[in-house]
């Protein structure tokens, strides 16, 4: 593998032999990398299509002999998938809405309003980004238990409505800083208050910012495993993350219906995949912002 970043050069008509070798080796390595990334997923797809006995065939075969598309119906049924899916949708929907809304509000105040203490609060929020979540788990568990929220969805949703993620507040503030001040001056002259400015002027302008945030918030909530695991006792309240993990450990003792499980697991992957492909641009932008944050 060569390490030189490609420098855009003049158009390249016939390839000199050395360059041809380089190109060929690049594609060989690229193919190797791709197969490491994709092979487990493809293999999962073939398991999801296999019959029960084919899963345990030794030696295993890559492709199924016959296709069992009914696994995509039977699998979800066998592990209460619809129920779990609904739970996940409600929990994620509510925490995304709350997280984005309250972070945008705090970011608006920090970036566009002049008030004593705005630097202090900015540093406080940025500082709390550094605090590892592990510090809170036991006191918060105790707190939620004391106020009767154990085994409810509230511990998974309410924190989001209270500014949830300091990273979002930081992102919101950064974006609001880039909006020209003449815009809200003009709105003020027209007699708009802060609530009006926020909802009718700022939210439409800052759409890329809150879409990015909503995608991140969706990912975080859809993937969250530890919090629902701690707070939810009743299996009928579980989101998909806890449900799917629990079915695997249940299976560990008995003969697992891996084909049914993998069919359901694929369905569990679909929403974030769909979000990724629709909103790829925002994904990369959000992450790239991290990559260049410290650069001159």
């Amino acid at each position, binding site marked *: *593998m060569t*390490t*030189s*970043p*490609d420098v*855009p050069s003049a158009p390249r008509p016939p390839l000199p032999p050395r360059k041809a070798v380089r190109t060929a080796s*690049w*594609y060989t390595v690229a193919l190797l*990398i*791709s197969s490491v*990334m*994709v092979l*487990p*997923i493809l*293999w*999962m797809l073939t398991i999801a299509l296999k019959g029960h006995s084919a899963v345990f065939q*030794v*030696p*295993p075969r890559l492709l199924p002999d016959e296709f069992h598309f009914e696994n995509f119906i039977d699998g979800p049924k066998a592990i209460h998938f619809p129920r779990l899916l609904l739970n996940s949708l409600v929990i994620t929907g509510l925490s995304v809405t709350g997280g984005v809304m309250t972070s945008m*509000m*705090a970011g608006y*105040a*920090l970036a566009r*309003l*002049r008030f*004593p203490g705005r630097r202090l*609060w900015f540093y406080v929020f940025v500082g709390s980004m550094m605090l590892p*979540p*592990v*510090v*809170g*788990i*036991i006191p*918060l*568990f105790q*707190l939620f238990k004391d106020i009767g929220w154990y085994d409810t969805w509230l511990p998974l949703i309410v*924190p989001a*409505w*209270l*500014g*949830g993620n300091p990273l979002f507040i930081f992102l919101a503030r950064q974006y609001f800083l880039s909006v020209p001040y003449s815009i809200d001056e003009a709105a003020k002259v027209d007699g708009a208050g*802060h609530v009006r400015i926020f909802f009718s002027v700022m939210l439409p302008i800052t759409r890329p910012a809150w879409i990015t945030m909503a995608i991140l918030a969706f*990912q975080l909530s859809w*993937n969250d*495993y*530890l919090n629902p695991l701690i707070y939810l006792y009743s299996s009928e309240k579980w989101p*998909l993350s806890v449900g*799917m*993990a629990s079915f*695997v*450990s249940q299976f560990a003792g008995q003969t697992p219906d891996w084909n049914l499980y993998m069919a359901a*697991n694929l369905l*569990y*992957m679909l929403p*974030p995949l769909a979000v990724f492909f629709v909103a790829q641009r925002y994904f990369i932008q959000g992450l790239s912002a*991290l*990559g*260049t944050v*410290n650069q*001159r």
Partner: protein
Amino acid sequence: MTATPDPRLRRRDKLTSDTRAAYAFMAPALIGFTVFVVYPLIRSAYFALTRYNGLTAPVFVGLGNFRRMFTTDPSFWPSVRATLLLVVLYVPLSLAIGLALAVFCNRRMRGVRVLRTLVYLPVVLPVVATITLWKFVFNPQVGLANQVLTWLHLPTSEWLSGEGSAMPSIVIVMLWSVGSTMIIFLAALQAVPTELYEAARIDGAGSRTMFFRITLPLISPIMVLQVVLQLVTALQTFNQPKILSPDGLGGPGFSTRVLMLSIYNNGFPTLGRVADFGYASAQVWVLFLVIVVVIAATARFSSVWTYSDHVS
């Protein structure tokens, strides 16, 4: 990044409509900060000094929990060892592979965008979904991992069920999501001005020289940021050992019982055992202090590691 002092911000502006609006807009976040950051921080420090099962009142025991941890608890040092092993395996590998992939993907080739997307794909999938997928990949009899080794005529492994191979297997699962590191390095690489490479090429520099003399120094700030992020992530790893260990407790033996899993097992025990909030909180503080030291040390030495441009 820092707010510039605003001439309009004066003492007499206190409690203007802006101030009231600002605190109203920040109210949810301020309440959240108090309840979810300040309160747990104080409370868990107190819990760490008590014997507390969550049911009866906490009993103050001073440093008793820490004494138990360092001297009598047979699982504490193994869990420190497991955590360190995870960090030592995961952090350097994820940085090296992430950077290598970023350099590899930072060329103008047909299909390079597809490759980037494929490398990033596992990051997008739900963590639990990928972990359970790998649990089956590592199945010794019918899993893909041993099958591939057989095709390549290599010796097979017992993967997650072997004491020696369990942690490396977990690191493999975590490294599959190296795309997030790759994307950040890629963004850093693309911010390096191409004139520098052109100038170096005219001076006769080879690709290796350019990488070590231009690329690495210029992306060193991102490198430091990545080191901190990956260290903090690795120290707090929970999902993979929890779901992948055969008993869910970090087995076989103590091989994958990292500190986070030990905290979880003590604080939220299964099988009818009583919770040990005091002891779990003490372990939380040990982990927390390690994280603080790691961040502080990296920040302290980052000026030595990173290149900074004094000219411009």
